[in-house]
């Protein structure tokens, strides 16, 4: 058979590496190759990054003045973020979130930019890049200067936002600007609402927290009375001040949920559900915290002080971890339902999976409510089961194939023999 002769590679005569390598030698050489490849990759990547950055050095002419323009607005805005219980504490997260959204679109941006450049190179007329359109940039400058005259943080934010949009439009054109519209719109959250609205919202949050925490204490059989901003338990009273209003925590969590929806490109329905769910969990968490604060104010003032002094960002991280876990579990659950739905539709169409696959998948659906870890472990089991089925199927198929090819070969051999005998007899 020709296949057997082709399977063994012929060694080059007189070559230096004629002796066959042992498996150990092969593995070590492979490892060495991989490590050298990895180091080469890193070195070349670093070189590429440096080359890229060096090619972009002209941007320093824009970035340095822009940072200079941001300096004073940032200083003024810090008052809104740095104070204890500041409701706009989420604002420093907004530029980071917008940058991550833009980074996520980098491949799309590259494609659009290349297309634009190609079009510019081939088209007889110049594309409309906005290179001569500095209107947005000038508008940004004017709003920024107006902000410096009236000292309103919102105008600083709006001016800087227009400035960023103007720079993008000037250097990259309207197509890139349109692509970046979501991250840029997210930056609008840096614009402050009117002070009166904010003060009114903080007051409402304080009153609502007082009422809700008193009600929670009542549920647990602790008699507490809510008067304006005070939760009174016997002789002790806890004042629900601005840092304890929970508005800052709620706004941070709602912003994170909103950003998560944008980043993971969720549907509007899921996004709305997720924001409401996050807000609900945060309010529940906050009200329980205030109820515990009011209760420990009587029994353990030291613990109350510790609880009252917990950093906002610690609470944010704790809640985020919990919510991310829930989000992952929910996501897996949705996937399972999607698979189940597909399976059902296939069954309806008559294209059913094998009984073994069905059997392997069933426990996953049954276990969907038991938490993400359980689901994940089940998923692993299922995938192993499915793999095994396919391996078995594959081995059976290959065995059948081999058998078939053998039969065909034998048929050919027989035919050949007959042919040769006939030829001889003919002679």
């Amino acid at each position, binding site marked *: 058979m020709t296949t057997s002769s082709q399977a063994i590679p012929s060694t080059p005569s007189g070559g230096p590496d004629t002796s066959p390598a042992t498996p150990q030698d092969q593995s070590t050489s492979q490892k060495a190759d991989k490590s050298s490849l990895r180091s080469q990759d890193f070195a070349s990547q670093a070189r590429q990054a440096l080359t890229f950055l060096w090619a972009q050095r002209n941007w320093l002419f824009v970035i340095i003045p822009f940072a200079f323009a941001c300096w004073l607005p940032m200083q003024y805005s810090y008052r809104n973020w740095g104070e204890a219980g500041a409701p706009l504490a989420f604002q420093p997260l907004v530029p980071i979130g917008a940058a991550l959204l833009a980074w996520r679109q980098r491949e799309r941006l590259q494609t659009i930019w290349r297309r634009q450049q190609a079009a510019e190179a081939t088209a007889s007329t110049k594309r409309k890049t906005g290179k001569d359109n500095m209107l947005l940039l000038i508008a940004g400058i004017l709003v920024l200067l107006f902000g410096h005259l009236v000292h309103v943080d919102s105008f600083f934010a709006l001016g800087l936002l227009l400035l960023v949009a103007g720079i993008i439009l000037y250097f990259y054109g309207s197509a890139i600007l349109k692509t970046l519209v979501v991250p840029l719109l997210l930056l609008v959250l840096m614009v402050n609402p*009117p002070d*009166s609205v904010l003060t009114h919202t903080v007051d409402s949050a304080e009153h609502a927290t007082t009422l809700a925490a008193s009600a929670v204490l009542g549920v647990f059989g602790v008699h507490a009375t809510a008067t304006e901003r005070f939760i009174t338990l016997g002789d002790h009273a806890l004042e629900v001040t601005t840092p304890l209003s929970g508005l800052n925590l709620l706004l941070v969590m709602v912003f994170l949920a909103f950003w998560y929806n944008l980043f993971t490109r969720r549907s509007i329905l899921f996004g709305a559900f997720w924001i409401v769910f996050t807000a609900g969990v945060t309010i529940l968490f906050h009200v329980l915290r205030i109820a515990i604060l009011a209760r420990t104010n009587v029994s353990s003032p030291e613990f109350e002080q510790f609880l009252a002094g917990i950093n906002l960002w610690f609470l944010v991280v704790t809640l985020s971890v919990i919510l991310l876990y829930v989000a992952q579990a929910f996501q897996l659950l949705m996937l399972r339902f999607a698979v189940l739905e597909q399976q059902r539709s296939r069954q309806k169409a008559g294209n059913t999976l094998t009984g073994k696959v069905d059997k392997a998948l069933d426990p996953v659906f049954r276990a969907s409510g038991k938490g993400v870890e359980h689901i994940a472990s089940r998923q692993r089991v299922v995938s192993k089961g499915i793999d095994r089925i396919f391996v078995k199927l594959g081995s059976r198929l290959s065995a059948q194939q081999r058998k078939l090819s053998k039969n065909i070969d034998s048929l050919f051999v027989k035919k050949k023999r007959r042919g040769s005998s006939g030829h001889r007899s003919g002679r």
Partner: protein
Amino acid sequence: MNLPTPFLKVGSIIAVAAALGTFSSYRFVHAGQWLPPMPDSVGQWTGVEAPLPQNTLAILGNPMAAGRDYTNPFGEIVRASLVSAGPFENYHDPTVCVTGGGFSLSAKKTFHIDGPGSGECRAMVFRHGDYRIIMYYWQQNRDGSTSPEARMGNYRDILARLQTGYGAVVQGHQTVLVRIYASIAEDDTDGVQAQRNIDDIARAIYHSLKKNGTGKE
């Protein structure tokens, strides 16, 4: 040398805006560098220095400030304070701050401090149960011009803020915030006596600031 013209063009525009912003910030600081003295005595009224509490100054962004209590031979007291007005955080309006302390605004009126042609001030009456106080408030520039409007609201008072910003940055105004107040006695039902007392002190301080600023008296 091949200059990156577009980058330089955009960068220089932003740099100019940033420099103008820094300049405006410097001018606002300059606007708060004037704190004229208050008259030691006004007619029958004798003044005693009464510095503003440290926590009040901290809320106002630690500006330069002075306070004086004026007492007449009948034992009636009128309190006056001057706060140098630099950045807008110094401009805390009584309608916001006093009401935050449990008072409610029960009357408000704008009028000329010393007859037609003189500067304008805002008179307010605050009530906390039966306790009432009357307060005059205005901003006086070094050139003698005054303004009674609030500057605290970020959108609501935008025009007044623009006026102050233009005055401080472009015209180089230096400004002080004047607050003069007295409690209204229970038997002074219409607050006539308290208003008469406060009028005396307000007129004296207005003219004193005008004289100290440009001497156009």
